[in-house]
């Protein structure tokens, strides 16, 4: 299984698409998920996203991602459930109630976040960071500085995750009980670790910035990239499908 957001080589349709097109399609897919609040529509979107992931060979990576997004969206769902009294009352609360509407809204949030997140993450699993940067500069006319900043940010997520896990290991070896099964205790113990993580992050980003600077980062222009990223029939079709999905999302949401 690939590490979080790490490129996995392959020859699936998703791998073969133009990097910019992949990025735009993922954004359009996410827009469609946020435009429409119809649970059935969102479930179809989730099914589409999962089919895309499985057909591209990212089943295990997507399962891991779904687990993480599900855990995060559950917190949001819980907040909605407790603060949005809607529909037929199911459980009475001192400040309101949990109704069928609250339950529907909570489910919608969970499905929406999962459906919107999967294609965005798949882009990083199916595309090299350098290709995303260069293609965004060449075709989307994003200034290199910003494209590089964006991809570097994404690139640093797994790096920082590794750092955090190494710091936790080092502290466990000193007797800090990170290997406890008590989640609350674990979270409380993690707070002081922000210091070493912050220090190592700042040191790493500073080193990366200096390394980029001494290699002529600011001299780079749109023409500096030697690789071309042509847009083919497959890219056109993918874009067309995503535009149709956005239109469908608007139609469904207007009909509701």
């Amino acid at each position, binding site marked *: 299984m690939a590490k979080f957001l790490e490129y996995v080589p392959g020859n699936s349709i998703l791998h073969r698409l133009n990097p910019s097109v992949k990025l735009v399609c993922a954004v359009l897919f996410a827009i469609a998920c946020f435009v429409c609040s119809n649970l059935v529509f969102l479930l179809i979107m989730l099914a589409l996203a999962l089919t895309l992931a499985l057909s591209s060979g990212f089943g295990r990576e997507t399962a891991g991602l779904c687990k993480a997004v599900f855990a995060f969206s559950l917190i949001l769902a819980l907040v909605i459930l407790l603060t949005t009294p809607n529909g037929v009352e199911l459980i009475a609360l001192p400040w309101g109630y949990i109704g069928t509407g609250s339950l529907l809204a909570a489910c919608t949030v969970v499905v929406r976040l999962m459906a919107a997140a999967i294609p965005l993450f798949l882009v990083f699993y199916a595309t090299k960071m350098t290709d995303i940067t260069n293609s965004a500069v060449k075709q989307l006319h994003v200034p290199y500085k910003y494209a590089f900043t964006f991809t570097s940010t994404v690139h640093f997520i797994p790096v920082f995750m590794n750092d955090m896990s190494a710091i936790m290991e080092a502290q466990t070896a000193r007797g800090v009980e990170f*290997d406890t099964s008590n989640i609350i205790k674990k979270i409380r113990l993690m707070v002081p670790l922000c210091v070493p993580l912050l220090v190592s992050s700042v040191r790493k980003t500073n080193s990366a910035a200096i390394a980029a600077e001494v290699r002529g980062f600011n001299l780079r222009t749109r023409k500096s990239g030697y690789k071309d990223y042509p847009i083919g029939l497959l890219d056109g079709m993918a874009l067309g499908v995503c535009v149709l999905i956005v239109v469908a999302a608007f139609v469904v949401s207007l009909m509701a």
Partner: protein
Amino acid sequence: MIEFAQVTASYDDDLAVLHDVSFTINDGDFVAFVGTNGAGKSTTMRLINGLLKPSAGEVLIDKMPTTQLKTSELARKMGFLFQNPDRQICCNTVREELLFGFSVQGEVGQAELDRVDALIEQFGFNPDDEPYLLNRGTRQLLALASIIVMEPPVVILDEPTTGLDYRECEKVMGIVRQLNEGGTTVVMVCHDMEVVGDFAQRVIAMTAGQVVADGPTFEVLRNSEVLKAAHILPPQITEISLALNQNCAQLPLPIAQANTVDEMVCALVDVEKGGF
């Protein structure tokens, strides 16, 4: 006592990085693990302190399998110095850092405060210094101090001299030697064969996740087959003596067996005096 009984280990269900490894480290030993990057040395260290559990075989610490022990419990028995001290350091001052281990284990009394003060004096630290503003060598020393202040019976050092200059390296290793002389078991991963030759009593050479040699330091470091298999260069004096052995037919025995500068100089002086 640390025992590895036919241990196989892997990360995330992927390919095994350690295959059928067996050895025993007795109390008071000073053992160095040598070999190329990826040979399985650091994995072995992680298995010893329970950060990694074996997928087959057993790792026993004082006859107790690590699968039944939590790493945080094992921390009382063994101190682990990581390659990067910044991963260990997490407090705002040197004194707090040295007290951190005690506070985690819930025992900060006058005895512990005295121990910290003694160590601050021994290492020459300023107790109010901010750890992250210290230089790399001093941070490494601080990380080592924060471990040995707990007086664990076993100290594990994962490349303790990486990034240190000669003076800092001498200081760190001098302290480690003192600990060993005081009865502490030292298990060390090291790429610097001069350090290994100078300090370790026993060497375990690894390659591709397997032990290829285990024995007294210079017995292993003089074995050309082991050196080739583990891709290691012996300390310079050993290398000279091995080269002389290969090229001179009637080499006097003390020169042929010299492993340190002292031994080589004495042998050469004796030869010059006509002792052989």
